[in-house]
């Protein structure tokens, strides 16, 4: 529980005491234990950190004093039973809750390296969403062409050069492992694709703008096992390029794709650790009960 163990602690921002005294009762993931960690300390930069984050729907406190560190270019999974707040937590990162009246954030989510408080009052939600991409539970391509779908984020960002847009669209589609399937029909509607392809199109759409963090909200829950496997493969490939936070119902999926896993229950963060540690040797009784299927 020493935030100082990680590299690149931001010196300008002293860690608030409540983050230290937070509910994290387990040690921070150590470099050696992670199944994916190479022991290369340089790569374990903190990309984002929630500090005493609470979230309210009206008077209902849906998230309770969360403290967690998100490592750069690693996959962090959020697991927990339905209603535990994992999706609510995920949607704080790109301020999706701002679209619902009567919601309120407390605490901070710092985005590094520039120490931007994502849920800060003075920080515009649009600005946050320009830097943090999201892939949703159900594939939601726009009823426009495949090309326009991927190009939309660039269009919003004011990219006018057609050559540049075409280049970035192709790059994004390649990164989302769907280029070969759609390169001959970029003008077809995004809705003409299969469910799995639509989801990869949505991933390409989010990648096209080079987000710093990519949020996945149960991205495979509407897909068949083969499409699911492809998405998981893709997340695995994205590991080196972007910081990923993924909410999943599926514990095997969390174990397969993530480096770190956070177990949440009733709006609280119960345990956060290296994925292999959390699944093989959880320190909390609740975590163990959940991963062994006793509830959830």
């Amino acid at each position: 529980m020493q935030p100082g163990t990680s590299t690149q602690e931001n010196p300008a921002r002293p860690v608030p005491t409540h983050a230290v005294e937070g509910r994290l009762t387990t040690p921070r993931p150590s470099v050696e234990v992670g199944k994916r960690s190479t022991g290369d300390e340089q790569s374990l930069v903190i990309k984002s950190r929630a500090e005493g984050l609470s979230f309210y729907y009206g008077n209902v406190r849906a998230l309770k004093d969360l403290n967690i560190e998100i490592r750069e270019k690693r996959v962090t999974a959020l697991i927990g039973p339905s209603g535990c707040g994992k999706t609510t937590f995920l949607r704080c990162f790109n301020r999706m809750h701002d679209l619902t009246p009567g919601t309120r954030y407390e605490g901070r989510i710092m985005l590094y390296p520039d120490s931007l408080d994502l849920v800060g009052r003075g920080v515009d939600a649009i600005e946050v969403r320009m830097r943090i991409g999201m892939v949703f539970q159900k594939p939601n391509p726009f009823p426009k062409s495949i090309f326009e779908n991927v190009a939309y984020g660039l269009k919003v960002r004011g990219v006018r050069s057609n050559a540049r847009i075409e280049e970035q669209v192709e790059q994004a589609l390649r990164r989302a492992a769907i280029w070969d399937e759609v390169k001959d029909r970029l003008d077809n509607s995004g809705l003409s694709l299969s469910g799995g392809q639509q989801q990869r199109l949505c991933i390409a759409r989010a990648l096209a703008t080079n987000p710093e963090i990519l949020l996945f909200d149960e991205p495979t829950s509407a897909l068949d096992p083969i499409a699911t496997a492809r998405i998981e493969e893709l997340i695995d490939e994205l590991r080196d390029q972007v910081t990923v936070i993924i909410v999943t119902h599926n514990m095997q999926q969390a174990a397969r794709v993530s480096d770190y896993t956070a177990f949440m229950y009733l709006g609280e963060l119960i345990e956060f650790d290296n994925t292999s540690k959390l699944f093989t040797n959880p320190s909390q009784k609740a975590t163990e009960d959940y991963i062994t299927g006793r509830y959830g």
Partner: protein
Amino acid sequence: MHAATADAALQQIRADVNRRKIFDKIFVMVGLLIMFSALLVLVVLFLDLVQDGAPRLNWDFLNSFPSRKAERAGILSAWVGTSLIMLTTAAVSMPVGVAAAIYLEEYAPKNWMTAIIEINVTNLAGVPSIIYGLLALGLFVYQFNLGQSIAAAGLTLSLLILPIVIVATREALRAVPRAIREAAYALGATRWEVTAHHVLPYSTGGILTGMIIGLSRAIGETAPLITIGALSFIAFLPESPFKGEFPFFSFAWLKEAFTAMPIQMFNWVSRPDPAFQVNAAAAGAILLGMTLLMNGVAIYIRYRFRKRINW
């Protein structure tokens, strides 16, 4: 023995299902009956008008001005007037109605002010059209000094159909799934961009349908037009909106006196000479035809847009 019991159980299940399915059949039959009665009334009415007006349903009728002689009277000034009024009505109520709906649906905060506006908009749809006529007489004809003009008529009917347009547009906007909006927001789009790039284009079919339903209502309105002073005898056409020389269009027609199809019909029906009844029937058939044509266009548009967008 065993098979016999199984058979009996099966028979019982079948009987049970059949008994419960009776209500489906009854409902379908009642529904069809009501629908066909309504359709039948419309068809009979239309055929009756066509039959009564048959002697006058020809090119000359469409191409002549009204006249004291029934057999020489036509509806040229009436259908031109109706078309221009509809053009004005559409041009005013479309932007205003769609903008109002976008505000209420996408921008307005959920508070008591919005609630009052919403209740009022819904209630306005139920206000009798003659009240709109009186309002327009005071406001457009005298206050704004528009006189008994096509502009005044168009504005009046715009007011009349605004609630219809607003309600229909809101429905259409609401039909755009939240997931699509979220997708756009998540990419960093502003509210305006989400509305302009996504919500509006995807709901165009519904908006145009609502617009045309509103116009179909407006095309048959008589009371407010009489109130603001529609003439029933106009033997000239308003200045053409299109011109041969630059700038190729003109708005002088907005200020001109007008008549409209329902006014012309009303005038003919109230004359004692039975020959004019034939004219009224013919005009009625044409007016009904215009309305059906507009509705047909609405259905086609909806079909086209639905085909392109299916969530």
